[in-house]
């Protein structure tokens, strides 16, 4: 037996090494990247299935090369070969040793907001800030995860920058609705406008547009749909309803009908059963007032909104002449303009649509070209890029201007002490200017026909009045 002992030992060692290596090479879903000493990291949390958003984010960061003199943007590791890797954009400024790493930590079915928060909190150093909340439900989840996490490396809790989540509250029907900005209190900053600001801007615009505002003999109607599985939808519906109830509509009284839809899941074309149920209630009501123009409030993302509008237009092809759909930022300019021929065929969706944009969607630059990553070229919308640029610029100025922030608290103090405030004291984006509204107006022809291309109108508010920025019609 002793003669075979060395062989057994060798085999045992081999098996042990193999198992050890197997553990070493095992995939770890939530593995944060290391932060070089002296540098800072901002964790951009976003879903894996939206690489386009990361590309637009990087394009927004590249805008800073033009906007902030002396700021260097290194995007050499922004687009990696492995889709499961952690890409990053690095900001630095000549004369400063420290760098700011903006990294995309990807949300997948395996790794959610909470898992990333836990993993990054355990790493030394923890991020100085998280950036995320592409949608309101994910923003709520991220804010809750950050708030519940008490132990952080360095004992400094990071900041939260909400990018495009607009919900004001978590549950507006609650007895005391909790504001999203207060879920992670005192450390949350929102770079976009809120649902309240959007609803106020859209309604303000509609009220000023004679060809869009609701009409009726004895009353006007606004049908408000609210998808209950989407906090953004519920909150935006409440904000629209609240703005309607403020009674700023001059003339005929407005009747608001709020319909709740259980969930948003559905196909590309057909309404899901709860949606069908709601439509079955609205369509007869609309049919009973053929001379009136009503508002259809669709606080939803593209797919549910499209399903509803398609179902309305399919039921009554010329319904767009007496129904105006309004929404927040759930429908993007890219959806209706760049991808409109596929995603938003106006002949199928022949209802005027008014939606909100956080930045100018048509700020295309005259210089540059398709090969210039920083160039803003049609037909891609520019609002998302410019919004990201605004958020990162404010963040970069907070990091690189003046004294290097030692921690998140120092960064928060610098952000609040800006000479030209970007955030309100509670962390919300300051509103009242800079909002944009886009109108997608089907062109009705004689004989009940609809032109295959709609008219796109982009407005912005300046000193309380809405001014046309650009009118576009595809040829």
């Amino acid at each position, binding site marked *: 037996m002793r*003669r075979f002992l060395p062989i057994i030992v060798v085999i045992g060692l081999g098996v042990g090494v193999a198992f050890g290596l197997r553990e070493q090479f095992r995939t770890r879903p939530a593995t944060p990247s290391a932060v070089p000493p002296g540098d800072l990291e901002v964790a951009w949390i976003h*879903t894996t299935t939206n690489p386009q958003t990361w590309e637009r984010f990087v394009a927004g960061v590249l805008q800073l090369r033009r906007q902030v003199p002396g700021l260097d943007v290194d995007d050499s590791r922004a687009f990696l070969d492995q889709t499961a890797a952690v890409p990053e954009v690095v900001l630095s400024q000549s004369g400063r040793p420290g760098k700011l790493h903006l990294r995309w930590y990807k949300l997948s079915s*395996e790794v959610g907001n909470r898992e990333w928060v836990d993993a990054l909190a355990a790493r030394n150093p923890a991020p100085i800030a998280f950036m995320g909340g592409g949608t309101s439900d994910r923003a709520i989840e991220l804010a809750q995860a950050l708030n519940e996490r008490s132990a952080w490396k360095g004992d400094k809790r990071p900041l939260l920058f909400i990018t495009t989540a607009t919900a004001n509250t978590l549950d507006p029907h609650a007895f005391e609705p909790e504001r999203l900005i207060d879920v992670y209190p005192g450390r949350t900053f929102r770079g976009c406008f809120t649902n309240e600001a959007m609803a106020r801007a859209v309604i303000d615009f509609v009220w000023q547009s004679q060809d869009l505002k609701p009409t009726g003999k004895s009353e006007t109607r606004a049908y408000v749909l609210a998808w209950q599985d*989407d906090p953004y939808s519920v909150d935006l519906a409440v904000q629209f309803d609240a703005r309607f109830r403020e009674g700023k509509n001059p003339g005929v009284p407005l009747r608001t009908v709020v319909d709740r839809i259980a*969930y948003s899941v559905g*196909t590309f074309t057909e309404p*899901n059963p709860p949606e069908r149920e709601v439509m079955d209630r609205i369509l007869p009501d609309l049919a009973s007032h053929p001379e009136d123009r009503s508002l259809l409030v669709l606080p939803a993302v593209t797919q549910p909104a499209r399903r509803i509008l398609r179902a309305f237009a399919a039921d009554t092809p010329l319904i767009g002449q007496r129904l105006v759909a309004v929404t927040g930022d759930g429908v993007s300019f890219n959806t209706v303009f760049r991808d409109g021929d596929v995603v938003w065929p106006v002949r199928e969706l022949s209802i005027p649509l008014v939606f909100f944009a956080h930045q100018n969607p048509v700020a295309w630059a005259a210089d540059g070209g398709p090969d210039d990553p920083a160039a803003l070229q049609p037909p891609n919308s520019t609002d998302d890029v410019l919004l990201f640029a605004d958020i990162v610029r404010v963040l970069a100025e907070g990091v690189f201007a003046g004294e290097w922030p030692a921690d998140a608290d120092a960064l928060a103090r610098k952000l609040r002490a800006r000479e030209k405030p970007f955030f309100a004291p509670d962390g919300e984006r300051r509103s009242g200017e800079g909002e944009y509204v886009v109108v997608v107006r089907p062109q009705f022809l004689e004989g009940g026909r609809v032109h295959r291309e709609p008219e796109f109108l982009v407005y912005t508010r300046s000193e309380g009045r809405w001014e046309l920025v650009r009118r576009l019609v595809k040829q």
Partner: protein
Amino acid sequence: MAESVSLPWWKVVRALAPAVLFWIALVGWLVYLLSERTRIGAEADEATMREWIDEARSFRKTLPELVREYLRRLEENGWDHAAPAVKEKAEEVQEQLKAMADPLRLYQGELPLFPEVYRIEVRFLNPPESLPPLAWDSPAPRPREQNRTHVRYLDHPVAGSDGKPAAVIRTEYRIHVFNRLQQEEAQRRRFYWIVGGVVFGGSALALAWVYLFLRRERGRELAQLQAEKAREHAEVLMLAAKVEAQEAEKAAAETKRALLEQTVEAARAATRAAEAERTNLEMRSQLYASIGIMAGSYAHNIKNLLVRPNDLINRCIEADGLRTDQASMLQEVKSTLGTVTERLQMILRTVRRDPNKAEMTRLDLNELIRETGKTWASIGREKWKLTVRAEPSADALPVRGDLSHLQQAIENLVFNARDATFEMRNHVRDAARAERDPAKRKQELIDAAAWRGEVVLTGRREGSHAVLEVRDNGIGMTPEVREQCLQTHFSTKRDNALYEGYSAGMGLGLSFVAVVLEHHGATMEIESEPLKGAVFRLRLPLAE
């Protein structure tokens, strides 16, 4: 030629086991990689489908997330799938299934980018089996019988809130319509089988070759080792012989060293003996000196005692009336007493002389030669059996010197000459005796008996010096003896039986002569050869 060595099988197994195991692991790993490589297309398809199931969202939530929500709602409602809230969530899941499948239906025929999905079914694992699965079925017909193999089934687990599998999403799909990759994989599989066979067979052959090679090499090594061992043994023997030789050399060296030590010891002993002899000689010199003093004292007393007998003898001789014979006897007594007195005077002169304390007076060297010859001629003739002859110069040879010292120095030379004639006589006699021819021996013995020693004292004048020669026909001297004869205590007569009874062999005579001559400003030349006698030539400055 090396002898073939047979090894026990278990030794071969033990020796080759690590290599064989490593080889099996390597080949196994290679087979695994190759087999994985041959179905990389199917794996890629499965990975695509899994990613689609995991990540596809119709509204923010993926199918697994909705399934988990459904399970939570079921749990909240006591696993009652008929509860309205559960039904609503089931409906939402159904919508998700439809939303996932509809785009694929929209682009049916666009394989492989848009798989044809025939059924998506969510089966629940832990709840009661009565819980119906949630499924979406395509209205499109399944492929015909001959294409059934193209339909694949993918079971994708869904983890519950506790991380354990709670449900399985089974998808029936077809993803390819004309898959060249599949064809290539089949070709590759066949190729890999051949490669595998070649690798395996080649490896087995290589292993066998290695075994035979090792066996042959082992035989060679064994032979080499044996040769090496034999050579080492020879070297050991050689080294042993060398060691023995070295030990012998060492022993010889030891012996030599011991011999040298003995020689040294002998030399030391000789030195010590010489020292002892010198000491003995000194003691003897002192003794002789003491004896001389005593003898002088006795001689003086005896001389004094002889004054009265001489006086009485003279009175008797001068008395009248003596008969002739009486007068003759008295004359003989008187002569004898005179001789005794003379001898005592000589003894007194001898023992009282000190060569370093000279009393210089004007002397006639011819007279000294004459006196010495007269003194020793009769004794030489009667007792020593030799001739002592004095041949003074016709010219006067006045010198300044101590009479006693010069007399003693000349007598020492005479005595040495006497001894040399004794040795020569013995030599002649021994040589005669050694002759084997009796007639010749007889004649030579007669000649030897007739041989007579001769000592001649000659004086002459040479320029400003007076020359005195003492010549003998004695045994002579070798050059070595001639060079050392003036050294104090050097003697050729010591331990010589010939001189037993004589006060000779102390090595003081010639050194005394040399000291005396030095005090007189004189020199001495010695001419001598073995068996040819010797001449001692003294040169003293003439006194004006």
